[in-house]
């Protein structure tokens, strides 16, 4: 028995030394207690998919690119084009040929100069079909885009390769002289400059293009920050202020991004004081709001969600059926119940942060009126005896759609059936017009112009959009807008198109997402602002305390 006691003693001794060691270590680091205000901003981030501007498609990659790279233009807080590398806004005589002047003296972090030729080379790389870059689609309106894409595959997915692209250079982009870039569009479009602030148009160094994989791991940027070390996948990205940057120098010396993997978020680390700015998730939102009060900022975004209708389906081809469904949705009640009231009711197709926004274009169709909705539906040929199939991809959207389905069932007297598909299957069926009932659909802007919420989604004829929608007057007005002389004329035309669209209602707009951000005690809360278009924090204005 004595021996056993000795074992216990040994274990407790071990435990005690462990604590003792820890306590010793604790004493050593005691001096720097509390705040970490050492000129470093600590932020959390999900693992980016890619850090090459041409291939960035999500906010994570966009956040890093925004720090390391600088483009011709960016967007200001109102969504207007603001020159960075460019000298003034693009000029044109006919809205078809655009001239962009560059400022002198900007370089990459490896010393390479940035000239018009840099953009020609970068954009050729981005667009070339075989490189399969996500950003290629942003150049569609430029002359010669189609010739840069892979040809039709002769046997579908068969053993024969698709034809190589006809051209290796985008014919619509020319360097007239080292500081002048000339872009020719396939069709005149007054909205073209608005697209240029996006990540896909950022320049890449020759050294980067020569070895894209290496450049992805250790980006060669030209922006206010320079990467420190390399991209530590799934764990961190560190960067330091680049003193040779010719543009506006930010005040923060160093940024350390910690990468969170899987479903983990930065929130627990923010509460533990290891992250300076973080967004609470849905579960933490109410607690965070109560606890942090004014330190929590909520801002509108450009992300809209709605219930899409299969206009191609006989049951939903009557606009009154779609209108009845839309009027049966209690939008505010839905947002309060499902999202703790944190999102905004959508009553237009274009959200408020986008230039060209017009309030209430959806009008009566987006106003909750269950009586009128029921009456409207009764006057149509809608088959009430069959359950309505509601389609969604697996994930949180299932809950969103279920709550919506319950509302529709209660207010319209219909029954519904939830149809869940995996993401690729859902997208494929949506493309192929195989969804047999309303589905949940969202949109994030590619560029800040109301046209972006209209033409790519509902234009291009019945086979060119997911809804099988074809509005002749709508497309006519869009075309007039595209050919307008000035941007404000174009926006007015697009607004008219939006009003016409709202009468046909291929989608019932429901909510616009808002972000919630909590600012830690190391950051000056008055200096914080989030760019509503890019979705990133404005680093130039941000200050540490």
């Amino acid at each position, binding site marked *: *028995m004595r*021996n*056993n006691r000795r074992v*216990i003693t040994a*274990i407790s001794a071990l435990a005690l030394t462990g604590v003792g060691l*820890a*306590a*010793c*270590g*604790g*004493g*050593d*680091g*005691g001096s*720097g*207690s*509390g705040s970490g205000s050492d000129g470093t901003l600590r932020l959390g981030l999900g693992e980016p998919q*890619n850090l090459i501007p041409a291939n960035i*498609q999500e906010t994570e990659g966009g956040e890093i690119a925004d720090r390391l790279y600088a483009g011709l233009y960016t967007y200001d807080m109102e969504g207007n084009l603001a020159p960075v590398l460019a000298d003034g806004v693009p000029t044109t005589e006919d809205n078809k040929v655009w001239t962009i002047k560059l400022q002198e003296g900007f370089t990459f972090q490896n010393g390479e100069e940035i000239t018009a030729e840099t953009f020609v080379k970068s954009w050729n790389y981005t667009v070339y*079909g075989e490189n*399969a870059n*996500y950003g*290629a*689609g942003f150049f569609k309106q430029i002359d010669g885009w189609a010739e840069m*894409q892979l040809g*039709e595959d002769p046997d*579908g*997915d*068969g053993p024969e390769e*698709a034809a190589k692209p006809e051209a290796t250079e985008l014919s619509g982009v020319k360097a007239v002289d080292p500081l002048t870039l000339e872009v020719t569009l396939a069709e005149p479009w007054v909205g073209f400059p608005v697209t240029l602030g996006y990540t896909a148009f950022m320049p890449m160094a020759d050294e980067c293009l020569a070895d894209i*994989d290496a450049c992805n791991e250790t980006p060669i940027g030209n922006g206010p920050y320079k990467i420190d070390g390399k991209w*530590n*996948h*799934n*764990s961190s990205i560190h960067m330091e202020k680049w003193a040779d940057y010719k543009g506006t120098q930010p005040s923060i010396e160093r940024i350390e991004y910690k*990468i*969170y*993997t*899987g*479903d*983990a978020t930065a929130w*627990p*680390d923010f*509460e*533990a*004081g*290891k992250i300076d700015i973080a967004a609470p998730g849905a579960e933490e939102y109410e607690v965070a709001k109560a606890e942090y009060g004014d330190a929590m900022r909520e801002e509108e975004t450009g992300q809209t969600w709605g219930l899409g209708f299969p206009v191609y389906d006989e049951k939903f081809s009557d606009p009154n059926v779609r209108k009845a469904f839309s009027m049966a949705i209690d939008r505010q009640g839905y947002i309060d119940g499902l999202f703790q009231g944190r999102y905004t009711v959508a009553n237009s197709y274009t959200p408020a942060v986008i230039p060209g926004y017009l309030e209430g274009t959806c009008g009566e169709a987006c106003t909750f009126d269950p009586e009128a909705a029921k009456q409207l539906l009764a006057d149509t040929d809608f088959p009430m005896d069959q359950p309505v199939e509601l389609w969604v991809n697996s994930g949180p959207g299932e809950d969103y759609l279920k709550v919506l389905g319950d509302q529709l069932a209660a207010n319209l007297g219909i029954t519904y059936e939830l149809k869940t*598909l*995996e*993401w*690729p*299957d859902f*997208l*494929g*069926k949506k*493309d192929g017009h195989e969804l047999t009932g309303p589905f949940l659909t*969202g949109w994030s802007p*590619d560029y800040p112009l109301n046209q972006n919420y209209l033409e*790519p989604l509902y234009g291009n004829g019945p086979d*060119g959009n997911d809804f099988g929608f074809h509005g002749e007057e709508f497309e006519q007005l869009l075309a007039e807008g595209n050919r307008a002389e000035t941007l404000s004329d174009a926006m007015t035309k697009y607004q008219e198109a939006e009003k016409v669209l709202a009468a046909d209602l291929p989608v019932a707009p429901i909510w616009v997402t808002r972000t919630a951000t909590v600012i830690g005690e190391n950051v000056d809360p008055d200096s914080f602002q989030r760019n509503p278009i890019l979705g990133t924090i404005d680093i130039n204005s941000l200050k540490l305390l």
Partner: protein
Amino acid sequence: MGRYVIRRLLQAVLTLFFVLFLLHYLLSLAIQVNGNPARTFFGDKPATPEQIAAVEAKFGTDDPCLDRLGDPCLGMFQQRMADWMTLDFGTNFDGYAVTDEIVRAVPPTLILFAISTSVWVLFGVTTGVLAAMKRGRFFDYLVRAGTTFTVAVPTFLLLVITQQLVGVSLGNWARDTFGRESVLGIVFQPSYDDRYPFLSLLVPGILLGAFGIAGITRLSRTSMLENLRADFVRTAKAKGLTSRRVTIVHTLRNSLIPVITLVGFTLADALGGTVITEGIYSIPGMGGLAYNATRENDLPVVIAIVAILSVCFMVVTLLIDLLYAVLDPRIRYE
């Protein structure tokens, strides 16, 4: 002994091949049923068939067999095995080498496993043995109640609560008292820190160890009790051996055989636990890699990970079988 090992290894290779093929078939089927993951590259945005074809080529999902439901895609499997022979594990959907991804993910998971295995062996076996020695006393009841408690509390809940209480509340106290970079401040934090891999993995490692510890403790206790009453122990005592020698050499050694089997299987089970633990503590390890790859249908990554895990599992079972021989002379001399 040598022939025994060789026979076991041959079996292992055959099993591995079978597992890989089954997995390949299931994943191909998943793509055939759920659609080609290349389409998700563009998300909600429209994409032309040519753009999708280019991405399919990049993802390696352009084989036409993936469009035919039920097609086993033998060509793809053959190609993959041929590549593996040259140690080429391919690239994932984002274009990164699978080998690099795995090499990065292995160390944190290994540390995590090392910590939890120590917890099982040091804590589980010790308390089990002590409970058996003090049968019917307070300590024994404490151990039995404690094990019931760990089984009853869901792992997920335990992880989330610990993250909040130990990582945030206790950790904030430690960081305020001793400083941000103090050992306690780092040990008690709510997520993995790549500057201090071992220290920041201590708490999640212990929690992962709590998962499965009940079985090991209980089994050690029962097995010990059984052997304490065995004839050879009575003989040893009668021979006049010291009680220390009787306990350690005669009873404990024989009691460890079933426990070691269980440790091996618990380790395999714990792989499931790492997915949750790594997810909550944001540890860039194998569990998280497997989870994300499966969710995105990232074929090359899933197959490579499962291959590695199968090999590990087989090595562990082989080691257990060999350890039997070491522990039990009757098996050794057969």
